[in-house]
């Protein structure tokens, strides 16, 4: 029986391995850095399953393919289906109108609706509510996939993949760039804070012409604040300016965030192709799945299905842009 070797245990690799295993293939995983952890950029993600919000600034496939994500994840980890609330300060209402024009599947939320959804948001009179969106905790999701794979008998090797393997799926993100000439890294920075005095129950996006921010609740008063998007490949540390911008936006949502503890800062590089859409590319005996950009959790299920269809049925999904087997 053919053994599929998946390289990389980030969200892409684990989703691909899961999809292959669920379709009955025999799978093993290689990652020299070990099980999912801070070494991979999906560790630092927001975990929003928000295809309609993302569509505001992304191309159509993100909207369509992203809609497959909620049910795929819900079968494998805890998904909170509480929607997304988008708000803007009075000064930035033109940005809210623009956001509304660019996407769909929302209802207008006035002061009362906002107060009913999120009583701890202060001073917002207008917003948009995307009821069908959801979110998950990325670290738990990675661990759940990892455990699920182990239960299915998928072997994990904390090692580099040996040379000369047949049937490889390379999901290494930016580490695979020497084989993917048009892949680049896009810097993202985030913070994790604990603010037990503030209770926000769903992802909230605060629009701003220069500093759009989102906050995702992780439970127990812990929140993820994200995220910058900078055309830079420096992943050393978060800058003071970015931290200042992220925190001041949180402060604008509720001044009580001023008393929050800063638990973690994160910075990493999102792998992206020039159109910021994912690609599946078969070169020789290796299938590359990469370029999930800001949409790791949103698009990993669609990418995983696309890889499985190419690997097992030789069917080309729209994400396959090159096949030189």
């Amino acid at each position: 029986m053919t053994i599929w070797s998946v390289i990389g245990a980030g969200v892409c690799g684990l989703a691909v391995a899961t999809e292959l295993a669920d379709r009955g293939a025999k799978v093993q995983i290689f990652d020299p850095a070990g099980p999912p952890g801070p070494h991979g950029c999906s560790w630092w993600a927001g975990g929003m399953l928000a295809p309609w919000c993302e569509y505001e600034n992304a191309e159509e496939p993100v909207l369509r393919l992203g809609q497959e994500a909620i049910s795929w994840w819900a079968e494998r980890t805890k998904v909170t289906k509480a929607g997304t609330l988008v708000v803007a300060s009075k000064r930035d209402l033109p940005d809210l109108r623009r956001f509304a024009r660019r996407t769909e599947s929302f209802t207008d939320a006035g002061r009362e609706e906002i107060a009913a959804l999120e009583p701890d948001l202060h001073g917002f009179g207008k917003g948009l509510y995307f009821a069908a969106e959801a979110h998950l905790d990325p670290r738990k999701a990675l661990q759940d996939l990892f455990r699920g794979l182990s239960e299915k008998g998928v072997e994990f090797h904390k090692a580099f993949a040996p040379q000369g393997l047949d049937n490889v799926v390379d999901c290494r993100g930016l580490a695979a760039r020497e084989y993917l000439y048009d892949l680049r890294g896009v810097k993202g920075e985030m913070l994790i804070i604990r603010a037990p005095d503030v209770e926000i129950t769903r992802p909230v996006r605060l629009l701003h012409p220069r500093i759009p921010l989102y906050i995702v609740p992780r439970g127990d008063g812990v929140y993820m604040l994200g995220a910058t998007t900078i055309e830079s490949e420096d992943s050393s540390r978060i800058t003071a300016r970015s931290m200042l911008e992220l925190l001041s936006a949180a402060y604008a949502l509720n001044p009580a965030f001023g008393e929050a503890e800063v638990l973690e800062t994160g910075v990493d590089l999102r792998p992206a192709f020039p159109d910021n859409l994912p690609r599946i590319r078969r070169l020789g005996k290796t299938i590359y799945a990469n370029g999930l950009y800001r949409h790791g959790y949103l698009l990993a299920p669609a990418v995983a299905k696309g890889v499985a269809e190419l690997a097992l049925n030789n069917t080309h999904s729209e994400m396959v842009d090159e096949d030189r087997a």
Partner: protein
Amino acid sequence: MRKFYGTDLPNPLMLGTAQYPSPAILEEAFRASGAGVATVSLRREGAGGAGQTFWQMIRDLGVYILPNTAGCHTVKEAVTTAQMAREVFGTDWIKLELIGHTDSLQPDVFQLVEAARILSEDGFQVFPYTTEDLIVGERLLEAGCEVLMPWGAPIGSGRGLNNEYGLRAMRAEFPDTPLVVDAGIGLPSHAAHAMELGYDAVLLNTAVARAGDPALMAKAMAQAVEAGRLAYEADPIEARDMAEASTPVIGKAFL
């Protein structure tokens, strides 16, 4: 058309490279518009040359590159950023931007003049982002600038030309200096308006990058600046308070 530090531009549209949904869409916008100049920011992307991949994409557009000092608030920051830009892009051109006010992003013209002098003495060819103030313009020219770039309206506001009178006065005051309206453009009619006043070029970013279809808007802007320039060269008629019939009425039966 006036030359920019000895260079003839292929057309009067300068486009920024920030805020596009993706580099692929940015490239489409340049292709669709034929814009001859791309401005690029380095301040935030720059650390340790980490922006190289993106900058290479900008070089690959094959247009003139005008690095900028966007995000700088002090002379020192702006000068350092300009020096880095020269190293990265191998050009003496620098769009000098020194922000003085957080909300309006209004330029700090005092620091601007100082930085322009330092950079000009160091061999830079400075494109200063300034206001329509004539005295500041004069000081910038004295400092070594050979181009002036007054704002139309605050950066990203899309309001068009807030002070048409001031921009007209600037054109009249500096007849030999290439002038560019930089910032505040929201619509093609704003860009055409600037060109109709006799401006040599228009620099914009948000109006294209954040449009629903950036490539289509870029094309519209290119057509607008072309129309505005042709109109200026064609010497438009003066506005009048009363109608002036284009065909004589004498000899017709006007019952």
